[in-house]
C-alpha cells in the first residue's frame, strides 16, 4: 500500500505540467521531433534493405532457390505443386544448359536458361531491363541475350544465333528477340534466356533443373523453407537468398551499423536539447522548489515529483513522437523515395531505386526506449541538484 501522500504526487505533477504549459510544450517538442526522426530513420534503413533484397531476389534467384537432383523426372510437377503452397507468390521453373552461342562471325560461352516466358517475365525483373526488343515468346525459338553477349556476337534484335551444348550437341537456332542490360557483369556476359518449350525433352532430362521461389512476405522465409524441405525429393537443395548472397547480408549489416551510428548521433544531439530544456526549466523553478521544501516536501519527494513530471511529459511526448514517426514513414512509403539517381550502377538498386520506409517493431521499440531514457537521464541530474541544495539557498532564487 502506497503512503497516502504518495498518491497525490501524480496529481500534483500533472497540475505543474499543465501550468508550465509553454515550457512543457518546448520540452515535449524536442522529444517528439527526436523520436519521430529516430523512427523514420530506422524505417528508412529497413526500407533500403528491403529494396536491396527485392532487387536481388526479383532479378533471378528468388527468395528461395531450389536445385533438383540430377535426372529428376518429376521436377517440373514438383515445382508446380510448390506453387500451390501457402505464402508462395510464384515458382519459376528453369532448365540450365551450358554451352556456346555462335554467329557466323563470333562465339561466346553462355549459360542458357530454359524458362516459361510468361511467368518469368511477369515475376522477375529481367524483362524490365530489356534495352532492345522484347522477351522471348512461348513455343517460339527466340532468345534473350545479355548486352555484353550480344556485343561479343555482334548480334542484334532479329538476328539468328546458334546454341551448341557443352557436350557438343546442337541445341538449335534462335532468333534474338531482345537484349537486356543489368550492369551486373555475370548476367550481361553469361546469362541468356529461351523458352523451355523449344528445348527437346531429351536435352532437358540431362541438364539440371532449378526453380526460383518467390514469397508473398519475406517474414515467412525460414518457415516456408522448413516446410518445403520436408516435402522435397532426396538430393534436392533449397537455399534462402541469405545463404546464396552473403555479400548482401554483409551490406545490410553495414547499412544497419552506419544508420545506427547516425541514429546515435541524432540521439545524443536530441538528448542535449532535451537536457538543456530540462535544465532551464528546473533552474527557473529553483525558488518554487525552495518553497515546496520550506513547506515540508522532503528531498526525495521533490526528486520524485519532478521526476514524475518529467516522466509524464517524456512518456506522452515519446508516444506522440512514435506516432509522428510512424505517420511520416507511412506517408513517405506511400510515394517512396527514388534513390535511382543517387545509386548509379549499384547492383542492389538495379531493378528499382524506389525505397519505401517500413516500420517494424524495432523501429518503435528502440527509438521509444532511447528517447525515454534520454529524457529521464536529462531530467534526473538537475532535479538532484535542486533537491540537494540547502533550502534557504534555493529560496534566494528570485
Amino acid at each position, binding site marked *: 500500500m502506497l503512503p497516502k501522500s504518495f498518491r497525490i504526487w501524480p496529481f*500534483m505533477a500533472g497540475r505543474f505540467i499543465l501550468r508550465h504549459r509553454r515550457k512543457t510544450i518546448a520540452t515535449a517538442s524536442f522529444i517528439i521531433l527526436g523520436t519521430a526522426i529516430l523512427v523514420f530513420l530506422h524505417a528508412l534503413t529497413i526500407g533500403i534493405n528491403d529494396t536491396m533484397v527485392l532487387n536481388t531476389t526479383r532479378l533471378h534467384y528468388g527468395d528461395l532457390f531450389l536445385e533438383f537432383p540430377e535426372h529428376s523426372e518429376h521436377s517440373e510437377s514438383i515445382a508446380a505443386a510448390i506453387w500451390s503452397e501457402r505464402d508462395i507468390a510464384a515458382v519459376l521453373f528453369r532448365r540450365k544448359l551450358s554451352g556456346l552461342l555462335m554467329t557466323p562471325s563470333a562465339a561466346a560461352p553462355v549459360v542458357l536458361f530454359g524458362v516459361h516466358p510468361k511467368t518469368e517475365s511477369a515475376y522477375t525483373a529481367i524483362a524490365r531491363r530489356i534495352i532492345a526488343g522484347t522477351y522471348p515468346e512461348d513455343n517460339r525459338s527466340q532468345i534473350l541475350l545479355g548486352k555484353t553477349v550480344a556485343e561479343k556476337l555482334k548480334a542484334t534484335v532479329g538476328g539468328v544465333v546458334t546454341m551448341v551444348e557443352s557436350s557438343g550437341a546442337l541445341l538449335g537456332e534462335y532468333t534474338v528477340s531482345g537484349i537486356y542490360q543489368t550492369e551486373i557483369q555475370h548476367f550481361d556476359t553469361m546469362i541468356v534466356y529461351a523458352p523451355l518449350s523449344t528445348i527437346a525433352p531429351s536435352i532437358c532430362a540431362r541438364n539440371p533443373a532449378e526453380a526460383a521461389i518467390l514469397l508473398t512476405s519475406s517474414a515467412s522465409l525460414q518457415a516456408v523453407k522448413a516446410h518445403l524441405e520436408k516435402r522435397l525429393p532426396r538430393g534436392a537443395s533449397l537455399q534462402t537468398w541469405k545463404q546464396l548472397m552473403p555479400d548482401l547480408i554483409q551490406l545490410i549489416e553495414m547499412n544497419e551499423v552506419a544508420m545506427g551510428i547516425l541514429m546515435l548521433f541524432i540521439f545524443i544531439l536530441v538528448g542535449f536539447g532535451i537536457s538543456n530544456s530540462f535544465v532551464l526549466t528546473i533552474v527557473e523553478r529553483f525558488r518554487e522548489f525552495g518553497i515546496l521544501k520550506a513547506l515540508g516536501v522532503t528531498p526525495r519527494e521533490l526528486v520524485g515529483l519532478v521526476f514524475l513530471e518529467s516522466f509524464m511529459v517524456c512518456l506522452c511526448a515519446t508516444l506522440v513522437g512514435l506516432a509522428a514517426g510512424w505517420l511520416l514513414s507511412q506517408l513517405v512509403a506511400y510515394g517512396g523515395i527514388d534513390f535511382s539517381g543517387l545509386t548509379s550502377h549499384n547492383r542492389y538498386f538495379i531493378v528499382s531505386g524506389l525505397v519505401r520506409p517500413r516500420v517494424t517493431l524495432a523501429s518503435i521499440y528502440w527509438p521509444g526506449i532511447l528517447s525515454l531514457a534520454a529524457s529521464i537521464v536529462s531530467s534526473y541530474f538537475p532535479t538532484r541538484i535542486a533537491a540537494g541544495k540547502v533550502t*534557504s539557498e534555493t*529560496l534566494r532564487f528570485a
Partner: protein
Amino acid sequence: MKPAVSLKQVSKVFITGGIRVKAVTAISLSIQEGAFWIVAGPSGSGKTTLLNLIGGLDRATEGEIQVGDLRLSTMTERDLALYRRHRIGFIFQGNNLIPTLTAFENIEIPLILIGDSDRKTKVNDILREIGLRDKAHMFPQFLSAGEQQRVAVARAVVHSPHLVLADEPTANLDMQTGSDILLLLQRLNQKLKRTVLFSTHDQRIIDTGENVLRLRDGRLDL
C-alpha cells in the same frame, strides 16, 4: 508554561567567497507556546537566519535548537522536512506563492502534504477568514501584493502548525496593507493559540509589539 522554542548558544557562520561571515552569534532564548513575538532589527542583523534556523531551513554551526520535544541538530534532512511539514508555517518576504498554482491550490499544499482528507473545506474556511473567497481560483500574478501575503498567511496556518515563522512579511507592502497582515496574524494567533515569530525592521510595527526580540549584528540586543 513549557517553552515552544528554546535556543542555547546558537551561532551560524556562512562562508561566502571564502570569507567567514557570522550571521548569528551565541543566541540563547526561550519562547513560550502560543506567544506572539516580534523579531526586530535592521537589515543584515540576522533575523532571516534566526528564523531559518528555527524553521530547520538551515543548520546551526554551534549551539542547540529545541522546538517542542525536537532537537533540530540531531535531525536528518528528511526529518527536518517532516518537521516543517507538520509543525511549521512559513511566510516569506515576497514571491511567497507558487506562481503556477491558484490561491486555493497554494493554501492546499500543506494539507495535501499531511494527507488531510478535509482539505477543501479547510481551505474554503480560511479563504473566507482572510476575505479572499472570491479570488480562490486566481493565480498569484492577478492578486495584489497584500492579497498575495494574505494567501501566504493562510497557507502558513491552514494545517495548524505549532509555530508560524513570518520573515518580514510586510516589507514589500504599504503601511496600511502591512498593518492588515500584522492584525491578521495577531488575530489568528489569538484564535488558534499558535506561537508566532514575526520579523520586521519597521519601527511602527515594532512599537505595537508586547514581546520584542531585538537583534543587532547577529546578537541579541538586550
